[in-house]
């Protein structure tokens, strides 16, 4: 605040009575208070505002033990420092899953070198047909930071539950070529392993890209 003119002249004819400037001593508690707040604010991790459906209170993402399509074990806790995008789908999905992967491919291409700190995990909800070998063949078509993730049905059930994912064989589809009805949602897990937001199918890839850049900027 600009310091108002405080000259008080008791002697001048045109004395202007102005509010007396508070003494430094009186201001000391205020300075202290503001300083504490400022330091506190600076020390808080900068939480960017995200698109999709942000979690109001970021919580640890439920961890799991899966196998990636290259045959390596995959746990969220092994990827501190990376931002993870998690999606549940299956390779025989004719429309939604390929569309999602195509859009994520664009996003990862836009990230350029930053993609080294990002992973797109495609958890199959069809472990019977999507063996790790089948996943490998499918994922190789995409960005190297895309991982197909596999777990047997017994383990997959609880992982799906943890993430609120519905997946079931469509009873109207041909049993020989069944389709799987499933929740289409992309979860964003930050480098501290916390769930930050989730995107529904149809979310503009530009928004997801913006969020990834923002989260990577938090590092």
């Amino acid at each position: 605040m600009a310091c108002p003119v405080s000259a008080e002249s008791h002697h001048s004819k045109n004395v202007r009575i102005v509010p007396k400037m508070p003494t430094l001593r009186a201001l000391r508690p205020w300075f202290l208070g503001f300083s504490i707040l400022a330091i506190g604010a600076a020390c808080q991790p900068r939480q960017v505002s995200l698109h999709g459906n942000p979690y109001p209170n970021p919580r640890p993402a439920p961890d799991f033990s899966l196998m990636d399509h290259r045959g390596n074990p995959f746990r969220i806790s092994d990827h501190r420092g990376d931002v993870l995008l998690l999606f549940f789908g299956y390779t025989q999905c004719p429309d939604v899953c390929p569309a999602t992967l195509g859009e994520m491919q664009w996003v990862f291409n836009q990230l350029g070198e930053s993609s080294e700190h990002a992973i797109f995990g495609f958890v199959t909800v069809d472990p019977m047909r999507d063996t790790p070998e089948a996943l490998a063949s499918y994922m190789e078509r995409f960005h190297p930071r895309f991982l197909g993730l596999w777990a047997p049905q017994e383990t997959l059930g609880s992982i799906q539950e943890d993430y609120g994912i519905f997946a079931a064989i469509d009873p109207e589809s041909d049993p020989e070529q069944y389709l799987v009805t499933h929740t289409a949602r992309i979860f964003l897990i930050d480098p501290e392993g916390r769930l930050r937001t989730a995107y529904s199918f149809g979310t503009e890839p530009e928004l997801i890209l913006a969020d990834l850049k923002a989260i990577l900027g938090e590092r």
Partner: protein
Amino acid sequence: MIQRWGPPLLRLTVLPLVVAACAGAEDPLEVRSAWARPADAGSNSAAYFVLVNHGGSDILLGASAQAASMTFIHRTVSDDQGVVRMAPQQEVRIAKGANISFEPGGLHVMLMDLNQSLQEGDNLQLTLHFAQYGELAIDVPIQDGP
């Protein structure tokens, strides 16, 4: 008078009309921006396009492709929980003058249990079956996106 001028007059008026009719009025059904995703043999893919109806109303009853064991018309449907499923479409009404878009997340021709892999750069032969028009054969390029 008529005897002298009739025949030439007739030729001058009727002939152009006949020629115009035979030259083929614009095809009532037009397919634009067709494409289908690459996929492995044994897996599934989907074909997308925009159907433009320059003629009277018609109904798309189905599709067929040599490259796929089964071909269906589906619409992707999602509920408010984000659960997506494929809803088979027995028919798609194409109103007079309509533009119907088959696109990801919506209507699509599902190509199931492919007999061969579809690679980017290939071309897929797809036949659309209409109630009025009959069969419309189209060339669908295989590509990653629209």
